[in-house]
């Protein structure tokens, strides 16, 4: 009974503490909402520069949509706040012609090439926001405009199951060709060795070079050819049918059917995954951005606020269990960022060097994350003791639908401006619902 009462008391105290915490932070939020999004590791550069996380990001997939979006950003000759754009020049200029035919290059599954990767992942972001002192310092109030670009230097690798399917696909294509070549052979003496060599030649010089998505390594290809050569000739000779065209064709048809069964199994396993074409492994992204302000909302008073560039290496593991229909991903990210503030215009005294790391686990609609960012300022006001500060945030996201995401963040933060450099021991808890229209995500 005593233990039960103790437990109930603890639960009540915990609940009261949580309510107090949330209320305190709610009240705190009314006067000064924390801008932890300004250092979020995986936001588009333009929004990072503005310190915003827009709910409605327009992602035009055609030039017409892009122009329409730009027109909507201006109303009565004024640039509207809370506009957010993101687009990929490559995919704007090269829209998918046949969306139903599998095109490995569209998913960056074709042969690895740094220039190609950079070109196809190059993305431009643009956003606007109302200005405030935290982000824009002593610049006159107006409309802030953020511009950013980012691209991948390394874009990860396809999943192991995708390779298994593709290997099976290529091998099955070979057996089909081999059987067809034997079937249509019209020579006087049926010579299976000659036909086999022709089939291997076709594999190496026609099938594989034409294949945009070839996952067979040179060693794997060599092993496959040697295995086929030994086993087919041996089995045909053992059965005494190597000179019998009809019997050999039937034998090869059976091999092609067996290869089809293997491909079918690998394809079924692949399609059970929530996102079969997703990449994993090591990725590295380069980003750069600038924020300007139209002071007093006057187009003639455009001032540079800050510039930044950063690198974001990351590693993704697909930890989904085999045959599972749910997706489980573990992401580990880091960031190293340099921000140059326009100190002459009074944006801030010093420049920032940020180093951060984030771990996130995604299971279907849930994402849990833990993020740490360390900031060093080159110069601080005389009344600020330290040049460094940090933030430690844990977060939970739940995607209720394509339009609605519930987000909750808990941790310690800082305001991010050397004039208001705070000791990051103030704990906050922020929860809310994000409502937005999700356009097509360009790859």
């Amino acid at each position, binding site marked *: 009974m005593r233990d039960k009462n103790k437990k109930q008391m603890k639960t009540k105290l915990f609940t009261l503490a949580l309510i107090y915490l949330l209320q305190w932070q709610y009240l705190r939020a009314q006067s000064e909402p924390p801008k932890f999004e300004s250092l979020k590791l995986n936001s588009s550069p333009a929004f990072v520069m503005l310190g915003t996380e827009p709910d409605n990001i327009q992602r035009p997939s055609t030039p017409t949509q892009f122009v329409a979006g730009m027109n909507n950003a201006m109303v009565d000759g004024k640039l509207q706040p809370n506009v957010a754009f993101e687009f990929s020049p490559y995919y704007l200029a090269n829209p998918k012609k046949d969306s139903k035919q*599998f095109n490995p290059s569209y998913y960056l599954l074709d042969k690895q090439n740094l220039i190609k990767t950079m070109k196809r992942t190059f993305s431009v972001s643009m956003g606007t926001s109302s200005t405030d002192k935290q982000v824009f310092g002593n610049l006159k109030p107006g409309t802030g405009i953020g511009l950013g670009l980012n691209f991948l230097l390394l874009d990860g690798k396809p999943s192991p199951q995708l390779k298994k399917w593709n290997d099976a696909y290529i091998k099955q294509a070979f057996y089909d060709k081999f059987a*067809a070549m034997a*079937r249509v052979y019209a020579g006087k003496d049926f010579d299976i060795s000659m036909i086999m060599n022709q089939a291997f030649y076709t594999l190496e010089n026609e099938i594989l070079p034409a294949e945009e998505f070839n996952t067979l390594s040179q060693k794997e290809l060599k092993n496959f050819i040697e295995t086929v050569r030994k086993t087919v000739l041996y089995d045909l000779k053992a059965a005494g049918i190597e000179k019998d065209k009809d019997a050999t064709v039937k034998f090869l048809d059976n091999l092609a059917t067996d290869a089809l069964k293997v491909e079918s199994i690998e394809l079924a396993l692949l399609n059970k995954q929530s996102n079969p*074409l997703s990449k994993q492994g090591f990725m590295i992204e380069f980003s750069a951005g600038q924020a300007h302000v139209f002071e007093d909302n006057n187009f003639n008073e455009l001032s540079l606020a800050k510039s930044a560039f950063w690198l974001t290496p990351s590693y993704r593991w697909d930890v989904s269990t085999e045959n599972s229909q749910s997706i489980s991903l573990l992401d580990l990210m880091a960031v190293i960022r340099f921000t140059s503030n326009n100190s002459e215009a009074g944006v801030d005294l010093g420049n920032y060097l940020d180093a951060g790391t984030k771990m996130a686990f995604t299971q279907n609609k849930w994402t849990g994350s833990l993020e740490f960012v360390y900031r060093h300022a080159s110069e601080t006001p005389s009344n600020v003791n330290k040049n460094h500060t940090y933030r430690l945030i844990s977060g939970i996201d739940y995607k209720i639908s394509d339009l609605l995401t519930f987000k909750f963040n808990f941790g310690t933060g800082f305001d991010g401006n050397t004039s208001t450099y705070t000791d990051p021991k103030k704990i906050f808890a922020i929860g809310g619902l994000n409502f937005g229209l999700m356009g097509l995500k360009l790859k």
Partner: protein
Amino acid sequence: MATVSPIHLNSQAVQFVYEISAEHRESLLSLSIEIILTQEGWAYRANSQVFLNAKDLLPAGKPLPNKLELGTGESLSDQSLLIRTKVSRIKTQSGASNEVPMVKYIIRIGTVTEELSSFEKESGKENPSVFNTTLLFKQL
């Protein structure tokens, strides 16, 4: 569209006699293959073999034939056309239905200016699906 389809799904093709009318004796005939997949979030990957007797008309890696030239009506008489197409369906979007979509497979024989015949077959849920066709041309 012809009512009897020479296309066999997941089984060996049975020879189908294709009659070429006398008016197309001198016409250059061609072959086109089309695949229709309507399910959102899925794409298809097709691999085709086209042999006219012993001649390989579609080198490996080439896209599905679109007006692939076969020969004049007269030259095609008593020639056998073997077509084998394997269609694999793969899910391309996160959140798409897990059910393998069906595809419609269409073969068209025509001249430069007109379509003479088309045959179609719908797949089942098996993935990949293999469509086999053997046409024996006969000039009337």
